[in-house]
């Protein structure tokens, strides 16, 4: 490669890096995935008696008061009435866990409570019980603004998440930002590309015929660009979650949502 070509490539790379950063969405342009859905799917989310995710919320409400583990304690024994104590909690996750020295998402927080306080085994990722509890907790934050705490402890994880979001990966060599920042609102096959704001997780996805977490969605996207997906609970996924929630800061939390 001649030095001139090498320079041109380097400049091209710089130009792309600059455009990727400049393309970060201005807050006035941000739209929830809800705004890209059909009228019928919106109606399904808006009506609690038509929203299938409410079946998980119902189940989570029962699990909230059920005693579990060696300590013989239920969630409600410490946290009381979830409608008051869990208000806004899901909209603040992932949040920093001093004991683990890193941010944890809502599912990991529930499991930490199970192992540390209830003396119960952690629930498997995407298991019905964990999704039900997460949906029940998340339901209490509906209508609250998304607000993850960014401080010196979480800043490095936010930057790592941002780097993952802007890094090209997989056989298709795509970065998250190339679809969700640069081409949102346009079509990818038959679907509209949303802006990737995680405002309603865990949510009921019609394609899944069930409830799923944000990590399930992220792994889906990674498979879509033919990258090897990170394992459930991997720090990389939590960092990405943290970045996405920060990116959606101030937007209304709408869990449990419905998506096509």
């Amino acid at each position, binding site marked *: 490669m001649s030095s001139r070509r090498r320079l041109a490539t380097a400049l091209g790379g710089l130009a792309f890096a600059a455009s990727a950063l400049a393309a970060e969405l201005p807050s006035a342009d941000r739209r929830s995935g809800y705004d890209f859905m059909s009228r019928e799917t919106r109606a399904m989310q808006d*009506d609690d*008696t*038509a929203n*299938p995710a*409410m*079946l998980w919320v*119902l*189940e989570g409400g*029962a699990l909230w008061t059920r005693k579990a583990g060696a300590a013989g304690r239920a969630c409600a024994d410490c946290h009381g009435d979830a409608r008051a104590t869990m208000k806004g909690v899901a909209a603040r996750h992932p949040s920093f866990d001093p004991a683990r020295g890193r941010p944890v998402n809502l599912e990991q927080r529930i499991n930490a409570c199970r192992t540390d306080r209830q003396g119960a085994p952690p629930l498997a990722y995407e298991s*019905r019980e964990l999704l039900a509890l997460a949906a029940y907790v998340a339901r209490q934050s509906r209508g609250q603004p998304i607000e993850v705490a960014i401080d010196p402890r979480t800043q490095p994880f936010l930057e790592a998440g941002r780097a993952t979001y802007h890094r090209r990966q997989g056989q298709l060599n795509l970065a998250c930002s190339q679809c969700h920042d640069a081409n949102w609102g346009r079509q990818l096959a038959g679907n509209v590309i949303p802006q990737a704001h995680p405002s309603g997780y865990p949510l009921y996805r*019609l394609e899944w*015929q*069930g409830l799923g977490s944000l990590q399930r969605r992220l792994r889906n996207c990674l498979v879509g660009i033919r990258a090897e997906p990170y394992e459930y609970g991997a720090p990389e996924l939590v960092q990405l979650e943290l970045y996405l929630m920060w990116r959606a800061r101030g937007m209304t939390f709408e869990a449990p949502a419905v998506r096509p």
Partner: protein
Amino acid sequence: MASALINVPPRVKRGEIIEIKTLISHTMETGFRRTQLGALIPRDIIRRFTCTYNGTEVFRAELHPAISANPFIVFSTIAVESGTLEFHWTGDNGFSVSQSTAILVE
């Protein structure tokens, strides 16, 4: 764990047409899918849904494999008298769920 969500207006006027919404948790496995090893996943669906109003059947539906998971069934009836609406879902593998809701007709 089988759970159902039912929405019936709690207070209605006599002779009014009321809308009843039901949502039940069920996988509705079609019986046509296979595992990665090629083994057929046996069918597991809800076959029948009935609603009785003070003992009289007012709505019945037969369900088939093409119906999606967590069936959402909406129908209407005429409010004739106060009492109870009973809902009953039955299906494969001995699936049977009953739930009832009170209705007050003024």
